[in-house]
């Protein structure tokens, strides 16, 4: 057999072998692996290349070395999943670098980080002021994770005491002018609903590049033709404005009548509409 056929066959076989092996090893991103895992990957890659280009002539020996590394990696990860002790031993433990706002110099020296490098890592996390940091930990992957002091954290609706409506993830229902029936079914809608929505906006399906439905059922469309202005769904804001108008109307009626029982009825209903408005505000305006 001539040499090029050997290399061709080996390459094809190894291509799929490595594909399968890496599927088993897992889904972790290459930038977030521990140094040891990195060495494993490099070794597997190296051996594969050496077998493929026929530098390791006896392919059985190459496969044995490859198999040992792949199986050991998978096996060790499996054991590490079951036992915390093995996990710490294999992956190392995270190191606390800043605790209660104070830098732990011994830990810093232990992970071979200088003060400058620590500051650079902090800046990477958008923290320029050391005084803002309450706690920082160096993960086993070499990434620094920062916990800010409570008054320096981004503001949330919870901090403001605002109630916000629960929102599920939006579903992409149109892609490249095609209806995605699976995601439509996920939110309990049909393609008939979608076509009627498109008709009411006056857009044909093949003009739509992307269409998304949010959890309250509003459809957002992006068209191929960007010159054509696309109205944004404003039904909820309108609804809230209408409620406001009705409340004002009822107030006017209560002022223009002389009958006290009718006046009371109007005032009571004004109050009811006001309650509906405060209750619906998170759903309609936020």
């Amino acid at each position, binding site marked *: 057999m001539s040499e090029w056929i050997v290399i061709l066959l080996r390459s094809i076989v190894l291509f799929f072998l490595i594909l399968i092996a890496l599927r088993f090893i897992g889904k972790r991103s290459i930038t977030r692996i521990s140094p040891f895992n990195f060495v494993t990957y490099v070794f597997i890659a190296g051996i594969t290349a050496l077998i493929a280009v026929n530098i390791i002539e006896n392919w059985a020996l190459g496969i044995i070395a490859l198999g040992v590394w792949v199986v050991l990696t998978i096996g060790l990860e499996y054991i590490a999943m079951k036992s915390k002790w093995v996990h710490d031993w294999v992956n190392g433990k995270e190191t606390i670098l800043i605790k209660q706002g104070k830098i732990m110099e011994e830990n810093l020296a232990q992970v071979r980080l200088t003060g400058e490098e620590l500051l650079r890592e902090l800046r990477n996390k958008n923290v320029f002021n050391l005084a803002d940091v309450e706690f920082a930990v160096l993960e086993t992957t070499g990434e620094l994770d920062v916990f800010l002091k409570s008054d320096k954290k981004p503001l949330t609706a919870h901090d403001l005491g605002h109630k916000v409506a629960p929102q*599920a993830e939006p579903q992409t229902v149109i892609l490249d002018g095609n209806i995605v029936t699976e995601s439509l079914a996920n939110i309990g809608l049909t393609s008939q609903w979608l076509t009627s929505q498109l008709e009411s906006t006056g857009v044909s399906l093949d003009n739509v590049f992307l269409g998304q439905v949010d959890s309250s059922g509003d459809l957002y469309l992006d068209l191929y033709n960007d010159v054509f202005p696309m109205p944004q769904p404003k039904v909820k804001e309108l609804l809230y404005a209408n409620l406001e108008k009705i409340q004002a109307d009822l107030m006017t009626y209560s002022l223009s009548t002389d009958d006290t029982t009718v006046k009371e009825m109007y005032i009571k209903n004004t109050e009811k509409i006001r309650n509906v408005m405060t209750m619906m505000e998170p759903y309609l305006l936020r």
Partner: protein
Amino acid sequence: MTVGSKVKQTVASLKGIQATFRIYESQSQNKETKSAFAEAIETTQTVIKDLEERIRVLEFEEPQYKGK
């Protein structure tokens, strides 16, 4: 425009709002959202009932404007 026809207009737009609430109630998947919209529908229903009663009285008082 008389008071009667004004109130009728208010009832009509209130019914429109109620219908939209109903659409959102059936469209939302979240239980909490669903119950919030259901409550809003109920409250608007009581307001509509009160106003419709008032319309009947007004029509009795100003029969010449009935139906407008």
